[in-house]
């Protein structure tokens, strides 16, 4: 780079980089620092305790429970969201009938795209309020009301949704109900992402496959999926981040924020409780740092595994 250009670029970048360092990197460093202390959050006195907080993490039953709940989301949120998004994107782009105009999506796909993308436009609070009505635990709830009307659910024993800790496939029911909301609100965005990727796949590849006698099933698994590998890999990492958070949904949708009786406790809800209710900021910072390390490792591993030679087309 020529000398003048370097100075020009530096001039533009100095301020944003300074802001980033001060407001993002420095707090992170501070949190890591606090995680080595017994700071309570409400005074300026703190004692250095070394790695005690981290040792404590490993023997904390609640954290262990929360960890496995996060792992549940980590597996299911990307899996179901990507599967649903791929299915929708495929139908909307190449799933329709073939005619002289070539490959196209199902009838009305432009409208469906808008509908499926809609949850992405809604604020989280709106989504939560809406789902509270859908999941309402008596006859006035959307689902319960409907099922009671047609006799599938006993009015004296309605579905408890997020207030139900009973295990389903070994996982508390409340987590499955939260998963449904997460998938519903995420699928639209990834559908658009995959749609864009699919549209960049040349149509003649599909036509060639169809001429060779491939049905929709085979075109999807032998043509579309391999060519979308990059997009899916990125989506997987993003969704992994979302799955490790999930805080907002747990906070607004579950009884006593993480209940009933810790059945929907996740890393972030335990962290929030430890810091703001118990007043153990040092320990809470250790949880935050541990979660950050876990997230970074996960992303690195994931990108490494899915890396392959790019197919040029």
């Amino acid at each position, binding site marked *: 780079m020529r000398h003048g250009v370097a100075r020009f670029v530096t001039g533009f970048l100095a301020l944003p980089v300074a802001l980033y360092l001060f407001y993002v990197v420095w707090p992170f460093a501070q*949190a890591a620092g606090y995680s080595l202390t017994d700071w309570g959050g409400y005074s300026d006195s703190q004692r250095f305790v070394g790695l005690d907080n981290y040792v404590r993490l490993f023997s904390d039953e609640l954290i262990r429970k929360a960890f496995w709940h996060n792992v549940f989301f980590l597996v299911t949120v990307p899996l179901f969201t990507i599967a649903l998004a791929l299915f929708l994107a495929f139908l909307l782009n190449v799933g329709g009938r073939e005619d002289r105009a070539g490959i196209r999506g199902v009838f009305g796909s432009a409208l469906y795209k808008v509908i499926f993308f809609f949850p992405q436009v809604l604020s989280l609070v709106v989504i939560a309020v809406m789902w509270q009505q859908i999941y309402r635990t008596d006859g006035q709830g959307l689902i319960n009301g409907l099922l009671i009307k047609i006799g599938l659910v006993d009015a004296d024993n309605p579905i408890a949704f997020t207030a139900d800790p009973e295990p389903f496939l070994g996982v508390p029911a409340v987590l499955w109900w939260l998963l449904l909301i997460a998938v519903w609100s995420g699928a639209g965005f990834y559908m658009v992402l995959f749609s864009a990727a699919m549209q960049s796949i040349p149509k003649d590849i599909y036509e060639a496959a169809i001429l060779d006698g491939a049905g929709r099933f085979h075109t999807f698994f032998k043509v579309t999926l391999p060519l979308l590998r990059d997009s899916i890999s990125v989506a997987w990492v993003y969704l992994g981040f979302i799955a490790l958070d999930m805080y907002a949904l747990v*906070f607004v949708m579950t009884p006593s924020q993480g209940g009933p009786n810790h059945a929907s406790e996740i890393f972030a809800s335990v962290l929030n409780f430890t810091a703001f209710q118990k007043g153990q900021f040092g320990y809470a910072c250790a949880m935050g740092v541990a979660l950050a390390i876990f997230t970074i490792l996960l992303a690195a591993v994931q990108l490494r595994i899915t890396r392959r030679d790019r197919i040029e087309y």
Partner: protein
Amino acid sequence: MSVIPEKSDLSRRTLLQRAGAAGLLAIPAAGLLSACAGSEPSKSDGGGAAKSKDNPFGVKDGSAVKVVVFNGGLGDQWAKEDKVVFNAKHPNVTVNMSSTQKIKTEEQPKMATQPSDLVMNSGADMMDRSTLINEGAIEPLDDLLTAPAWDGEGTVGDSLLPGTVGDGTQNGKFYVVNVAYTVWGNWYNAALFKKEGWTAPTTWDEFFALAPKIKAKGMAPYVHDAAHGYYPRWALFASIWKAVGKQAVVDIDNLKDGAWKADGIVAALEPWEKLVKDKLLLPGKLDHTQSQQAFLDGKAAFIQVGTWLKNEMAATIPPGFELTMSDYWSKPGDKAAKDVFAASGEGFVVPSKAPNKEAAKEFLRAILSKAGSAKFAELTKSLASTKGSGDNVQDTALASANALVKGGSGELISVKFPDFYADLDKESQNLSEELMAGRLTAAQFVDKMQAAADKVAKDSSIKKQTRTA
């Protein structure tokens, strides 16, 4: 202390605040730093006039007093009425009253330099009480208690309902003047009970006898908020206190060895276990407003909640609905059946650096007057912390709560451990929900509470607190 919960638990602001805070965790609350108000005494320019029975603090004519009112669930009209009461006695003192919901945001930055004279420290955005006291930022008000009452016999202290002075006292001094009084109990619709010829039960036996009749009418006998564990916890603790008396609850608060295993605690909770097992609860896990609306819609005969119910649900109470409060049910052999679950709240404080502390205290005297508190009760449909505030108000909800307090023993039910220990707070909420969901028996509930209390007692990282009174 604010005992009245926020209208909705889901506010975008708190949600974002918490989400953001959980993500960052690292920026120490700047507000806490700025909270450090100086504590050296400042000269007051409002006092100095001759003291008399009608002017016990020597408020100077021609001075001004700045009063800040929290405009929350109770509104602020009652405070404007207090201004009228005040000016009747002191026409030449100017009252500058303002109302806000952001007490901490607006008042804390001024505490160290130019505070208002009288601040109602209430709502979600309130200044931390212990911090204010420990920093010497607010004035002890013991002389207010010994001053003569505004328009009654005796002193201001004599005119307050039981518990009010205790609730406002810290480190042996009286700092916070709570003006509202909250009572908890079982609500029912007196009009409906009259129509059906039912008598409101006072004991568990009477309730279980009445329950089948209620069910026969297609109603559920009972409903409660099942989304926030502290709602059922009030009811469970009312039963425990009534059954075993104060000392046993003090022992529980103090984490005494085996406190939960004291005789009578399991028995106190067994009626609740039976209530759930006999399917006397309205089906569904409703939250506070949903359950309250279900009660108002006539789907359930009883709901347990505090006296803010009337205000909170004002818009949807059907005409002819006679909202009436009755005490939590007791059973034969209860040691303290007449103790009532009540507490004062909505506290006023006088900043140490306030320029006209004399007038601030005089204004408090006016708020706590018979005339002022009666207006408060009339306008807010909540009891004031002054005795007799609800005596002349024509409102079934208020009158029944008033009667409940008057008929009580004078001893108030209160539980401190949830304020002392966050872990036990959470655990007791969770376990209360589990008991009311039928997933725990009374005996299992007690075992698990004892285990949780033992765990906190052993945890050296948790600072221990002691309850004396």
